[in-house]
Protein backbone atom coordinates (compact mmCIF):
# COMPACT_ATOMS: atom_id res chain seq x y z
CA UNK A 1 0.00 0.00 0.00
CA UNK A 2 1.38 3.30 -1.02
CA UNK A 3 1.22 6.19 1.31
CA UNK A 4 1.19 9.27 -0.87
CA UNK A 5 3.24 12.21 0.23
CA UNK A 6 1.49 14.83 2.29
CA UNK A 7 0.33 17.62 0.00
CA UNK A 8 0.91 21.01 1.45
CA UNK A 9 -1.40 23.92 1.04
CA UNK A 10 0.07 27.17 -0.09
CA UNK A 11 -0.24 29.34 2.97
CA UNK A 12 -0.86 33.00 2.41
CA UNK A 13 0.75 35.47 4.71
CA UNK A 14 -1.69 38.28 4.09
CA UNK A 15 -3.96 37.15 6.92
CA UNK A 16 -2.82 40.00 9.13
CA UNK A 17 -5.30 42.80 9.53
CA UNK A 18 -8.33 40.73 8.61
CA UNK A 19 -11.19 40.41 11.11
CA UNK A 20 -10.85 37.25 13.18
CA UNK A 21 -12.26 34.14 11.54
CA UNK A 22 -12.91 35.73 8.18
CA UNK A 23 -10.71 34.94 5.26
CA UNK A 24 -10.71 35.67 1.58
CA UNK A 25 -10.06 33.44 -1.36
CA UNK A 26 -10.76 33.15 -5.05
CA UNK A 27 -13.24 30.73 -6.52
CA UNK A 28 -13.29 30.68 -10.32
CA UNK A 29 -11.49 34.03 -10.34
CA UNK A 30 -14.12 35.61 -8.11
CA UNK A 31 -13.03 37.14 -4.81
CA UNK A 32 -15.12 35.64 -2.04
CA UNK A 33 -14.97 35.79 1.72
CA UNK A 34 -15.56 32.91 4.05
CA UNK A 35 -15.62 31.96 7.69
CA UNK A 36 -12.72 29.92 8.95
CA UNK A 37 -13.63 26.25 9.04
CA UNK A 38 -16.07 26.41 6.16
CA UNK A 39 -15.59 23.99 3.30
CA UNK A 40 -15.03 25.01 -0.29
CA UNK A 41 -18.46 23.62 -1.14
CA UNK A 42 -20.22 25.69 1.52
CA UNK A 43 -18.52 28.87 0.40
CA UNK A 44 -19.25 28.12 -3.26
CA UNK A 45 -22.93 27.54 -2.51
CA UNK A 46 -23.18 30.77 -0.52
CA UNK A 47 -21.91 32.51 -3.61
CA UNK A 48 -24.12 30.64 -6.07
CA UNK A 49 -21.22 28.84 -7.63
CA UNK A 50 -22.32 25.40 -8.80
CA UNK A 51 -20.31 22.35 -7.80
CA UNK A 52 -21.99 19.01 -8.52
CA UNK A 53 -22.51 16.67 -5.56
CA UNK A 54 -24.18 13.34 -5.01
CA UNK A 55 -23.16 11.81 -1.69
CA UNK A 56 -23.06 15.20 0.05
CA UNK A 57 -26.17 16.35 1.86
CA UNK A 58 -26.42 19.40 4.05
CA UNK A 59 -27.15 18.27 7.58
CA UNK A 60 -25.21 15.01 7.37
CA UNK A 61 -21.53 14.31 7.91
CA UNK A 62 -19.48 14.50 4.72
CA UNK A 63 -17.86 11.47 3.13
CA UNK A 64 -15.99 12.68 0.07
CA UNK A 65 -17.01 9.45 -1.62
CA UNK A 66 -18.74 10.24 -4.91
CA UNK A 67 -15.85 12.43 -6.11
CA UNK A 68 -18.15 14.61 -8.24
CA UNK A 69 -17.25 17.70 -6.20
CA UNK A 70 -13.52 17.42 -6.91
CA UNK A 71 -12.01 20.83 -7.62
CA UNK A 72 -8.63 22.12 -8.70
CA UNK A 73 -6.63 24.21 -6.26
CA UNK A 74 -3.74 26.29 -7.45
CA UNK A 75 -0.47 24.95 -6.13
CA UNK A 76 -1.89 21.56 -5.18
CA UNK A 77 -1.25 18.73 -7.59
CA UNK A 78 -4.12 16.61 -6.36
CA UNK A 79 -7.77 17.27 -7.00
CA UNK A 80 -9.59 17.73 -3.72
CA UNK A 81 -13.21 17.10 -2.78
CA UNK A 82 -14.93 20.44 -2.11
CA UNK A 83 -17.30 18.91 0.44
CA UNK A 84 -14.59 18.12 2.99
CA UNK A 85 -11.77 20.51 2.12
CA UNK A 86 -11.70 23.58 4.36
CA UNK A 87 -11.01 26.94 2.78
CA UNK A 88 -7.73 28.69 3.42
CA UNK A 89 -6.64 32.25 3.08
CA UNK A 90 -5.71 33.14 -0.53
CA UNK A 91 -6.67 29.74 -1.83
CA UNK A 92 -7.44 29.79 -5.54
CA UNK A 93 -10.13 27.30 -6.45
CA UNK A 94 -11.24 26.24 -9.92
CA UNK A 95 -14.59 24.48 -9.89
CA UNK A 96 -15.04 24.08 -13.60
CA UNK A 97 -12.48 23.10 -16.21
CA UNK A 98 -12.37 20.82 -19.21
CA UNK A 99 -10.54 18.24 -17.13
CA UNK A 100 -13.04 18.40 -14.25
CA UNK A 101 -15.97 18.19 -16.63
CA UNK A 102 -14.45 15.13 -18.27
CA UNK A 103 -13.81 13.41 -14.95
CA UNK A 104 -17.27 14.22 -13.65
CA UNK A 105 -18.95 12.85 -16.75
CA UNK A 106 -16.88 9.68 -16.51
CA UNK A 107 -17.77 9.24 -12.85
CA UNK A 108 -21.45 9.48 -13.81
CA UNK A 109 -20.89 6.98 -16.60
CA UNK A 110 -19.37 4.61 -14.07
CA UNK A 111 -22.33 5.00 -11.72
CA UNK A 112 -24.79 4.36 -14.54
CA UNK A 113 -22.83 1.32 -15.71
CA UNK A 114 -22.65 -0.17 -12.22
CA UNK A 115 -26.31 -1.04 -11.67
CA UNK A 116 -29.55 -1.15 -13.62
CA UNK A 117 -30.58 2.49 -13.76
CA UNK A 118 -33.48 2.38 -16.19
CA UNK A 119 -34.79 5.93 -15.79
CA UNK A 120 -37.84 5.44 -17.96
CA UNK A 121 -39.40 2.92 -15.62
CA UNK A 122 -38.13 4.35 -12.33
CA UNK A 123 -40.36 5.60 -9.57
CA UNK A 124 -38.10 8.63 -9.22
CA UNK A 125 -38.14 9.55 -12.90
CA UNK A 126 -38.16 13.34 -12.93
CA UNK A 127 -37.17 13.69 -9.27
CA UNK A 128 -33.86 11.92 -9.32
CA UNK A 129 -30.58 13.62 -8.47
CA UNK A 130 -28.56 11.20 -10.59
CA UNK A 131 -30.78 11.75 -13.62
CA UNK A 132 -30.59 15.52 -13.16
CA UNK A 133 -26.81 15.44 -12.79
CA UNK A 134 -26.41 13.44 -16.00
CA UNK A 135 -28.37 16.07 -17.84
CA UNK A 136 -26.67 18.98 -16.17
CA UNK A 137 -23.16 17.66 -16.77
CA UNK A 138 -23.90 16.65 -20.34
CA UNK A 139 -23.47 12.93 -19.91
CA UNK A 140 -25.51 11.74 -22.89
CA UNK A 141 -24.36 8.13 -23.04
CA UNK A 142 -22.26 5.53 -21.23
CA UNK A 143 -19.19 4.33 -23.09
CA UNK A 144 -18.37 1.49 -20.75
CA UNK A 145 -20.10 -1.86 -20.82
CA UNK A 146 -22.98 -2.05 -18.40
CA UNK A 147 -22.35 -4.59 -15.68
CA UNK A 148 -25.98 -5.72 -15.35
CA UNK A 149 -25.79 -7.18 -11.84
CA UNK A 150 -28.69 -9.31 -10.77
CA UNK A 151 -30.10 -7.41 -7.81
CA UNK A 152 -33.17 -7.79 -5.67
CA UNK A 153 -35.99 -5.52 -4.64
CA UNK A 154 -37.00 -5.77 -1.00
CA UNK A 155 -40.61 -4.74 -0.53
CA UNK A 156 -41.09 -6.48 2.80
CA UNK A 157 -41.55 -3.25 4.74
CA UNK A 158 -45.18 -2.26 4.94
CA UNK A 159 -44.61 1.32 3.83
CA UNK A 160 -41.32 1.43 1.95
CA UNK A 161 -39.30 -0.56 -0.50
CA UNK A 162 -35.69 -0.73 -1.56
CA UNK A 163 -34.59 -1.42 -5.11
CA UNK A 164 -30.89 -2.24 -5.13
CA UNK A 165 -30.83 -1.74 -8.89
CA UNK A 166 -31.05 2.01 -8.30
CA UNK A 167 -28.69 2.36 -5.35
CA UNK A 168 -25.53 4.46 -5.84
CA UNK A 169 -24.03 3.64 -2.41
CA UNK A 170 -23.97 7.30 -1.37
CA UNK A 171 -24.59 6.16 2.22
CA UNK A 172 -27.06 8.96 2.91
CA UNK A 173 -29.53 6.42 4.33
CA UNK A 174 -26.81 4.93 6.53
CA UNK A 175 -25.79 8.35 7.78
CA UNK A 176 -29.24 9.81 8.37
CA UNK A 177 -30.35 6.70 10.24
CA UNK A 178 -27.24 6.75 12.41
CA UNK A 179 -26.65 10.47 12.86
CA UNK A 180 -30.18 11.88 12.94
CA UNK A 181 -32.60 9.10 13.78
CA UNK A 182 -30.09 7.30 16.00
CA UNK A 183 -31.25 3.83 15.01
CA UNK A 184 -28.37 2.72 12.77
CA UNK A 185 -30.63 0.26 11.00
CA UNK A 186 -28.72 0.66 7.73
CA UNK A 187 -25.15 -0.21 6.95
CA UNK A 188 -23.16 -1.58 4.02
CA UNK A 189 -22.18 -5.21 3.72
CA UNK A 190 -19.29 -6.63 1.71
CA UNK A 191 -16.99 -4.26 -0.10
CA UNK A 192 -15.98 -2.94 -3.48
CA UNK A 193 -18.28 -3.73 -6.34
CA UNK A 194 -20.13 -6.27 -4.15
CA UNK A 195 -21.14 -3.68 -1.54
CA UNK A 196 -24.87 -3.47 -0.74
CA UNK A 197 -26.88 -1.52 1.79
CA UNK A 198 -28.46 -3.75 4.40
CA UNK A 199 -30.86 -3.48 7.30
CA UNK A 200 -29.78 -5.15 10.55
CA UNK A 201 -28.20 -8.55 9.91
CA UNK A 202 -29.01 -8.41 6.21
CA UNK A 203 -32.61 -9.29 7.03
CA UNK A 204 -35.66 -8.24 5.02
CA UNK A 205 -36.42 -4.62 5.87
CA UNK A 206 -39.86 -5.57 7.09
CA UNK A 207 -38.32 -7.86 9.71
CA UNK A 208 -35.88 -5.29 11.01
CA UNK A 209 -35.87 -5.06 14.79
CA UNK A 210 -34.39 -1.60 14.82
CA UNK A 211 -36.17 0.32 12.03
CA UNK A 212 -38.45 2.97 13.51
CA UNK A 213 -40.29 3.53 10.24
CA UNK A 214 -39.39 7.24 10.34
CA UNK A 215 -38.86 7.42 6.55
CA UNK A 216 -35.83 9.71 6.82
CA UNK A 217 -33.77 7.31 4.71
CA UNK A 218 -36.38 7.41 1.98
CA UNK A 219 -36.49 11.19 1.99
CA UNK A 220 -32.71 11.61 1.64
CA UNK A 221 -32.18 8.92 -1.00
CA UNK A 222 -31.06 10.71 -4.17
CA UNK A 223 -32.44 8.10 -6.55
CA UNK A 224 -35.33 5.69 -6.75
CA UNK A 225 -33.55 3.12 -4.58
CA UNK A 226 -35.63 3.96 -1.53
CA UNK A 227 -39.23 4.84 -2.15
CA UNK A 228 -42.62 4.99 -0.50
CA UNK A 229 -45.10 2.36 -1.49
CA UNK A 230 -48.31 3.35 -3.19
CA UNK A 231 -47.01 6.59 -4.61
CA UNK A 232 -47.06 7.34 -8.30
CA UNK A 233 -44.04 8.62 -10.16
CA UNK A 234 -45.44 12.14 -10.10
CA UNK A 235 -45.97 11.97 -6.35
CA UNK A 236 -42.62 10.48 -5.43
CA UNK A 237 -41.00 13.78 -4.50
CA UNK A 238 -38.45 13.58 -1.72
CA UNK A 239 -38.48 16.06 1.14
CA UNK A 240 -35.10 16.78 2.65
CA UNK A 241 -35.92 20.14 4.22
CA UNK A 242 -36.15 18.63 7.67
CA UNK A 243 -32.44 17.91 7.82
CA UNK A 244 -30.86 21.35 8.27
CA UNK A 245 -33.79 22.20 10.55
CA UNK A 246 -33.14 19.19 12.76
CA UNK A 247 -29.46 20.02 12.87
CA UNK A 248 -30.15 23.57 14.03
CA UNK A 249 -32.60 22.38 16.66
CA UNK A 250 -30.13 19.86 18.00
CA UNK A 251 -27.33 22.39 18.13
CA UNK A 252 -29.58 24.79 20.04
CA UNK A 253 -30.44 22.07 22.50
CA UNK A 254 -26.81 21.60 23.44
Amino acid sequence: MTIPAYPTFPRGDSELGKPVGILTLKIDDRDVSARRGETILEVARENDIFIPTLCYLEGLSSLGACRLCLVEIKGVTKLLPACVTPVRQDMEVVTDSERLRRYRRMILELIFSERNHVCSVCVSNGHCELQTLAQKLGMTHVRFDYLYPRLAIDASHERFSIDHNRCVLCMRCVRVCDEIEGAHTWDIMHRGISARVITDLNQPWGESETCTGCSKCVQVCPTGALSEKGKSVAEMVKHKEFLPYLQIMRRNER
Partner: protein
Amino acid sequence: MEALKETASKAQDETSKRADDPRWRRVNRVMRLHGYRPNALIETLHMVQDTFGFLEMEALKYVAKTLQVPLSRVYAVATFYHFFSLKPPGKHTCVVCMGTACYISGAAEIMHEMQEALHIEPGETTADGAISLVTARCLGSCGLAPAVVLDGEIKGKMTPAAVLETIERWQADASG
Protein backbone atom coordinates in the same frame (compact mmCIF):
# COMPACT_ATOMS: atom_id res chain seq x y z
CA MET B 1 -47.68 -12.14 30.42
CA GLU B 2 -46.87 -15.82 29.95
CA ALA B 3 -45.11 -15.02 26.71
CA LEU B 4 -43.10 -12.33 28.41
CA LYS B 5 -42.05 -14.73 31.14
CA GLU B 6 -41.03 -17.24 28.56
CA THR B 7 -38.90 -14.71 26.72
CA ALA B 8 -37.28 -13.65 29.95
CA SER B 9 -36.43 -17.18 30.98
CA LYS B 10 -35.14 -17.89 27.49
CA ALA B 11 -32.80 -14.93 27.71
CA GLN B 12 -31.71 -16.19 31.13
CA ASP B 13 -31.00 -19.63 29.67
CA GLU B 14 -29.10 -18.07 26.83
CA THR B 15 -26.84 -16.12 29.15
CA SER B 16 -26.20 -18.99 31.51
CA LYS B 17 -25.60 -21.35 28.62
CA ARG B 18 -22.97 -18.94 27.42
CA ALA B 19 -21.50 -18.64 30.91
CA ASP B 20 -21.25 -22.42 31.27
CA ASP B 21 -19.89 -23.16 27.85
CA PRO B 22 -16.07 -22.93 27.91
CA ARG B 23 -16.14 -21.82 24.30
CA TRP B 24 -18.30 -18.84 25.08
CA ARG B 25 -16.18 -18.12 28.11
CA ARG B 26 -13.23 -17.54 25.74
CA VAL B 27 -15.31 -15.06 23.76
CA ASN B 28 -16.58 -13.34 26.87
CA ARG B 29 -13.06 -13.03 28.17
CA VAL B 30 -11.96 -11.04 25.10
CA MET B 31 -14.89 -8.68 25.47
CA ARG B 32 -14.24 -8.24 29.18
CA LEU B 33 -10.53 -7.54 28.57
CA HIS B 34 -11.56 -4.70 26.27
CA GLY B 35 -14.02 -3.35 28.81
CA TYR B 36 -16.97 -4.33 26.57
CA ARG B 37 -16.14 -1.34 24.40
CA PRO B 38 -17.46 -1.27 20.85
CA ASN B 39 -13.91 -1.09 19.50
CA ALA B 40 -13.40 -4.70 20.62
CA LEU B 41 -15.65 -5.84 17.77
CA ILE B 42 -12.98 -7.15 15.40
CA GLU B 43 -10.96 -8.81 18.17
CA THR B 44 -14.14 -10.47 19.44
CA LEU B 45 -15.15 -11.71 16.00
CA HIS B 46 -11.67 -13.18 15.61
CA MET B 47 -12.19 -15.13 18.84
CA VAL B 48 -15.67 -16.29 17.81
CA GLN B 49 -14.34 -17.57 14.50
CA ASP B 50 -11.31 -19.13 16.14
CA THR B 51 -13.57 -20.94 18.59
CA PHE B 52 -16.50 -21.97 16.42
CA GLY B 53 -14.90 -22.06 12.98
CA PHE B 54 -17.23 -19.41 11.56
CA LEU B 55 -19.54 -16.57 12.55
CA GLU B 56 -23.03 -17.80 13.25
CA MET B 57 -25.98 -15.37 13.14
CA GLU B 58 -26.78 -15.96 16.80
CA ALA B 59 -23.18 -15.23 17.70
CA LEU B 60 -23.28 -11.96 15.77
CA LYS B 61 -26.42 -10.95 17.64
CA TYR B 62 -24.88 -11.82 20.97
CA VAL B 63 -21.70 -9.87 20.24
CA ALA B 64 -23.71 -6.91 18.95
CA LYS B 65 -25.76 -6.82 22.12
CA THR B 66 -22.85 -7.26 24.49
CA LEU B 67 -20.62 -4.65 22.86
CA GLN B 68 -23.55 -2.38 22.07
CA VAL B 69 -22.76 -2.18 18.40
CA PRO B 70 -25.66 -1.86 15.93
CA LEU B 71 -26.62 -5.15 14.27
CA SER B 72 -26.08 -3.78 10.78
CA ARG B 73 -22.61 -2.56 11.74
CA VAL B 74 -21.65 -6.00 13.07
CA TYR B 75 -22.84 -7.60 9.86
CA ALA B 76 -21.02 -4.95 7.83
CA VAL B 77 -17.73 -5.60 9.63
CA ALA B 78 -18.17 -9.39 9.43
CA THR B 79 -18.59 -9.19 5.64
CA PHE B 80 -16.14 -6.38 4.88
CA TYR B 81 -13.17 -8.38 6.14
CA HIS B 82 -12.54 -11.46 4.05
CA PHE B 83 -10.90 -13.34 6.89
CA PHE B 84 -14.32 -13.81 8.47
CA SER B 85 -16.72 -16.44 7.24
CA LEU B 86 -20.45 -16.63 7.87
CA LYS B 87 -20.60 -20.23 6.71
CA PRO B 88 -19.18 -23.30 8.45
CA PRO B 89 -15.99 -24.58 6.84
CA GLY B 90 -15.79 -28.02 5.26
CA LYS B 91 -14.22 -30.96 7.04
CA HIS B 92 -11.09 -30.47 4.95
CA THR B 93 -9.76 -27.20 3.57
CA CYS B 94 -7.66 -26.60 0.50
CA VAL B 95 -6.16 -23.11 0.31
CA VAL B 96 -4.57 -22.19 -2.99
CA CYS B 97 -2.20 -19.24 -2.73
CA MET B 98 -2.92 -16.70 -5.45
CA GLY B 99 -0.04 -14.39 -4.58
CA THR B 100 1.88 -12.96 -7.51
CA ALA B 101 4.73 -15.43 -7.39
CA CYS B 102 2.34 -18.38 -7.15
CA TYR B 103 0.14 -16.95 -9.88
CA ILE B 104 2.91 -16.71 -12.43
CA SER B 105 4.11 -20.18 -11.43
CA GLY B 106 0.84 -21.88 -12.22
CA ALA B 107 -1.51 -21.32 -9.26
CA ALA B 108 -4.34 -20.45 -11.64
CA GLU B 109 -3.96 -23.86 -13.26
CA ILE B 110 -4.14 -25.58 -9.87
CA MET B 111 -7.22 -23.56 -8.94
CA HIS B 112 -8.83 -24.39 -12.27
CA GLU B 113 -8.28 -28.12 -11.75
CA MET B 114 -9.65 -27.96 -8.21
CA GLN B 115 -12.79 -26.22 -9.41
CA GLU B 116 -13.26 -28.90 -12.03
CA ALA B 117 -12.69 -31.70 -9.57
CA LEU B 118 -14.88 -30.35 -6.80
CA HIS B 119 -17.51 -28.55 -8.89
CA ILE B 120 -17.34 -25.51 -6.63
CA GLU B 121 -16.05 -21.96 -6.88
CA PRO B 122 -13.32 -20.57 -4.63
CA GLY B 123 -14.84 -19.65 -1.28
CA GLU B 124 -17.38 -22.47 -1.43
CA THR B 125 -17.73 -25.83 0.29
CA THR B 126 -18.82 -29.04 -1.41
CA ALA B 127 -22.47 -29.96 -0.90
CA ASP B 128 -21.56 -32.85 1.41
CA GLY B 129 -19.60 -30.44 3.61
CA ALA B 130 -16.41 -32.41 3.02
CA ILE B 131 -14.08 -29.95 1.32
CA SER B 132 -13.77 -26.16 1.25
CA LEU B 133 -11.85 -24.48 -1.54
CA VAL B 134 -10.25 -21.19 -0.53
CA THR B 135 -7.88 -18.70 -2.12
CA ALA B 136 -5.25 -16.81 -0.17
CA ARG B 137 -3.73 -13.48 -1.16
CA CYS B 138 -0.22 -14.47 -0.23
CA LEU B 139 1.03 -17.03 2.21
CA GLY B 140 4.47 -15.52 2.26
CA SER B 141 5.93 -18.67 0.76
CA CYS B 142 6.72 -16.97 -2.53
CA GLY B 143 10.09 -18.68 -2.63
CA LEU B 144 8.28 -22.00 -2.94
CA ALA B 145 5.65 -21.02 -5.45
CA PRO B 146 3.11 -22.31 -6.12
CA ALA B 147 2.06 -23.00 -2.55
CA VAL B 148 -1.06 -24.78 -1.35
CA VAL B 149 -2.26 -25.31 2.23
CA LEU B 150 -3.88 -28.70 2.73
CA ASP B 151 -5.62 -28.92 6.10
CA GLY B 152 -3.29 -26.38 7.63
CA GLU B 153 -0.08 -27.80 6.22
CA ILE B 154 1.77 -25.57 3.77
CA LYS B 155 3.11 -27.40 0.75
CA GLY B 156 5.47 -25.69 -1.67
CA LYS B 157 6.20 -26.25 -5.37
CA MET B 158 2.85 -27.91 -5.94
CA THR B 159 1.37 -29.27 -9.15
CA PRO B 160 -2.30 -29.87 -10.00
CA ALA B 161 -1.68 -33.63 -9.88
CA ALA B 162 -0.14 -33.51 -6.41
CA VAL B 163 -3.05 -31.52 -5.00
CA LEU B 164 -5.59 -33.73 -6.72
CA GLU B 165 -4.06 -36.75 -5.06
CA THR B 166 -4.86 -35.36 -1.61
CA ILE B 167 -8.29 -34.19 -2.72
CA GLU B 168 -9.12 -37.68 -3.97
CA ARG B 169 -8.03 -39.16 -0.67
CA TRP B 170 -10.32 -36.73 1.15
CA GLN B 171 -13.18 -37.59 -1.17
CA ALA B 172 -12.64 -41.28 -0.53
CA ASP B 173 -12.71 -40.60 3.23
CA ALA B 174 -15.99 -38.73 2.92
CA SER B 175 -17.73 -41.41 0.90
CA GLY B 176 -16.16 -44.31 2.81
